């Protein structure tokens, strides 16, 4: 019998017993942080708790609606400057992570050989002892791969790892490392800027999927809305340059289907025209340098290379430079090449040419929240992860720890990252789900879900905020917050470690951290009052971050052509992998809401597909929905074809996120993981994996697939029901 929505009698009783009995040890203590006196928890009436969304790396502020002790709905926090009360599909679906039927419910120990996938439950005590003894057995050999956790947890991790002289790698697959590297090189600042889309009048985007999964889609989505219709007389123009018509390009006024890997060249061409036509707004000192750089290129050659006609380039340049507030951004497919960093630098140079740094509608670097003591939590590139292979080989037997990261899925098999797991003496995972990497662990000590735990989130890039997360529901399973684990191990190890990490649990550490911070920020209030206020608000943020002045205005060292793996004759197609709206890099694949969320462009749900330009498909005699084999020098996959008029004819595009071999019932064995096709091509400047640098060919199988389309026939969507009405 299903537990129905209003079955609150039982839960109410549980709440009553759990939260109201004095002297209740263990987990129930966690309920006391509720902001409301327990008398005010009334069945049938919702309570709202502010927290920070941890579904992606943007760190939106959220409000969680809790009724009868259960989280019912997640909504955007209207006061949070990152998302202003809005929330994306993934954030909404975080509830299905919390209540996912396949969550790990307690500590597990491997049985049988590694990778066999057999685990048996053990007690926390035993689990912790094993972990500690393994750590002690391998001094100096421990590696922690964690998702980026800017804030107190990063400080805890880095202190801990430093004390055991291990390595700490913050990694997230779609972290746009190339963008950070390019900005660092261009502007000399180690921050992600805020692109002031809302005030832009001409947005030139090179592949940046800012409306679906780039940096902070909600933040930029909000700004996009303002850019289009937020100003009474001005409507910002928006051009998207990329080989595949992405979700973001769908909203653009014009889509420029450029040849993959030549985005940097196009940027250079545009820059050249701007300079030649004398529209550059450069400082005196820079002009010579710029002219020298740009004069080295021939516009005709650029036009030929990029396959954007010369007039088109000139038009783009004029439109861009004549605009009141132009802005060029780059990322996504433009960054996913071996020349990604240089491409992005060339795009940055466009912004330098029109002098929009710090201007409204331009690029702004904002000072992070000051006075917050935290360790750096900048994500590392794929190259850094791959370097671990050598480390583990050399170190021989060492301990690998995983926190909320799944590198085995996120890295192409051609990178042979699996070797790290094979070489590790002991693998501990703190993940909440049995994902591909966790399945290879020796010990699983599952963390609380983020809605059950304390935490904070220091947003350094984009909009500076310090988000504060509190548990909104009683932990559902026998899990433990990872912070508490590290602190208690610190106590077991003792010595200097204990000195550096003296807190009894993570909550105490967090409070202390914030006490120091708030003491400086809100001097007139007592800590308790300020703390409660911060909890209610969901963190701390100032009225408007201070601008950081940019000292460096660098041009790319060179704009070299992108390298591709695979002979163009044998492998005639470029490959474009893109993050699907709901699943992103695959983290969302175990949330049924996201699996059933139609892909906005193709309306596919619950599976993978291959997008081919209809013209190309017809040349090959491929029917729509036919299963096709995509072959690269490194692997092959099979999936159904969807005719996609927004693909270059020489491009095959496949969504990421499916093809899990583990990760619960909704994800496992569904669709294909196109990462298996990829060659281990790396952008040398940023160390980022160049996902667009592999060439492929296709073969027909003749079998008809059954991709699930919400747009059932697919025919009708070729015509718009409104005809002329939908547009002007």
């Amino acid at each position, binding site marked *: 019998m299903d537990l129905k929505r209003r079955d*609150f009698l039982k839960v109410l009783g549980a709440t009553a017993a759990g939260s109201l009995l004095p002297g209740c040890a263990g987990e129930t203590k966690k309920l006391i942080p509720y902001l409301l006196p327990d008398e005010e928890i009334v*069945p049938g009436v919702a309570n709202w708790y502010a927290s920070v969304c941890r579904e992606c790396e943007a760190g939106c502020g959220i409000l969680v609606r809790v009724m009868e002790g259960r989280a019912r709905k997640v909504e955007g926090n209207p006061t949070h400057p990152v998302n202003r009360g809005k929330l994306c599909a993934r954030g909404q679906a975080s509830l299905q992570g919390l209540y996912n039927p396949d969550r790990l419910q307690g500590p597990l120990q491997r049985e049988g050989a590694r990778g066999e996938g057999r685990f048996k439950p053990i007690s926390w005590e035993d689990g912790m002892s094993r972990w500690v003894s393994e750590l002690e057995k391998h001094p100096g050999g421990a590696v922690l791969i964690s998702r980026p956790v800017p804030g107190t947890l990063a400080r805890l991790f880095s202190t801990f790892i430093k004390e055991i002289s291990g390595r700490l790698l913050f990694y997230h697959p779609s972290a746009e490392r190339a963008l950070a590297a390019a900005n660092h090189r261009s502007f000399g600042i180690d921050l992600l800027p805020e692109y002031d889309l809302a005030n832009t009048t001409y947005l030139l985007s090179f592949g940046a999927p800012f409306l679906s999964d780039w940096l902070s889609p909600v933040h930029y989505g909000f700004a996009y809305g303002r850019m289009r219709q937020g100003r009474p007389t001005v409507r910002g123009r928006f051009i998207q340059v990329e080989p595949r018509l992405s979700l973001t390009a769908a909203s653009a006024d014009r889509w420029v289907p450029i040849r993959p890997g030549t985005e940097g060249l196009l940027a250079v061409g545009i820059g050249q025209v701007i300079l030649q036509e004398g529209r550059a707004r450069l400082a005196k000192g820079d002009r010579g340098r710029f002219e020298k750089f740009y004069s080295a290129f021939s516009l005709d050659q650029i036009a030929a290379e990029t396959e954007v006609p010369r007039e088109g380039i000139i038009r783009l340049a004029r439109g861009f430079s004549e605009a009141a507030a132009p802005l060029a951004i780059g990322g996504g497919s433009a960054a996913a090449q071996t020349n990604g960093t240089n491409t992005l630098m060339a795009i940055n140079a466009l912004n330098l040419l029109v002098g929009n740094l710090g201007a409204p509608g331009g690029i702004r670097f904002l000072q992070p929240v000051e006075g917050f003591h935290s360790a750096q939590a900048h994500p590392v590139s794929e190259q850094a992860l791959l370097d671990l292979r050598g480390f583990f080989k050399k170190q021989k037997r060492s301990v690998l720890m995983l926190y909320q990261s799944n590198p085995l899925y996120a890295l192409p098999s051609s990178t042979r990252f699996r070797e790290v797991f094979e070489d590790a003496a002991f693998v501990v995972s703190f993940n909440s789900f049995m994902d591909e990497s966790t399945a290879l662990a020796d010990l699983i000590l599952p963390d609380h879900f983020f809605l059950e735990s304390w935490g904070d989130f220091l947003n350094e890039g984009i909009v500076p905020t310090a988000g504060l997360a509190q548990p909104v529901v009683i932990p559902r399973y026998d899990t433990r917050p990872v912070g508490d684990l590290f602190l208690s191990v610190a106590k077991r190890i003792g010595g200097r470690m204990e000195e550096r990490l003296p807190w009894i649990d993570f909550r105490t550490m967090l409070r202390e951290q914030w006490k120091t911070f708030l003491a400086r920020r809100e001097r007139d209030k007592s800590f308790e009052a300020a703390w409660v206020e911060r909890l209610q608000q969901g963190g701390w943020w100032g009225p408007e971050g201070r601008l950081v002045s940019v000292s460096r205005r660098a041009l790319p060292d060179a704009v070299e052509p992108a390298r591709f793996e695979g002979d163009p004759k044998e492998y005639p197609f470029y490959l474009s992998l893109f993050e699907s709206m709901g699943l992103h890099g695959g983290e969302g694949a175990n949330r049924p809401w996201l699996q059933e969320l139609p892909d906005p462009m193709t309306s596919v749900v619950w599976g993978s597909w291959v997008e081919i330009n209809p013209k190309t498909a017809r040349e090959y005699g491929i029917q729509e929905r036919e299963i096709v084999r995509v072959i690269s020098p490194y692997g092959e996959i099979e999936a159904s074809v969807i005719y996609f008029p927004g693909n270059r004819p020489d491009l095959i595009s496949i969504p990421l996120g499916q093809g899990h071999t583990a990760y619960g019932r909704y994800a496992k064995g569904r669709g294909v993981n196109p990462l298996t096709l990829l060659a281990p091509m790396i952008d040398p400047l940023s160390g980022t994996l160049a996902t667009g640098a592999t060439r492929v060919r296709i073969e027909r199988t003749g079998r008809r697939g059954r991709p699930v389309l919400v747009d059932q026939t697919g025919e009708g969507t070729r015509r718009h029901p409104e005809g002329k009405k939908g547009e002007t």
Partner: protein
Amino acid sequence: MRKWAGTLLALWVIAVALIVGFFYSQGSADLRGQDRQPIAFSHQRHAGELQINCLFCHRGADISPAASIPPVYVCMMCHRSLKAQTPETQKLLTYWNNKEPIPWVRLQRLPEFVRFTHQMHLNAGFKCTDCHGQVAQMTSTPRAATFEMGWCIRCHQRNGASKDCFTCHY
């Protein structure tokens, strides 16, 4: 005669349908549930003799859709200090000491598709007894009214409240 047989059959079918429908519309409330309450709680004793206000225990009634069952700790507010022990209060103490909720059997249940809010009705000036009867004189509390739709509608009509379906069903 054949015609009558047909009529009789039709009547029989309608009668069966009505009977089935009647019981169906009763929801899943078990009217004999009071025999199976874990503790023989007496409203007569508490609300009647001791004159405890309804809202003291059912504290959700005027602020929430649900009147709510009191948490164990509300019972213990008094029973902690009471010296006299009966087998029934002993049961209460057992629950309290084991930190278990009391599995009360629900008697006043509306079907899932009915959205009833106590709050609105109390705010409109109704008393608990208007619908639940003289609870203060009952040892067990069966339904005082049918709680069927027609019963709701009649009252809504009498009091000029909305008869719109979307008031209660969504």
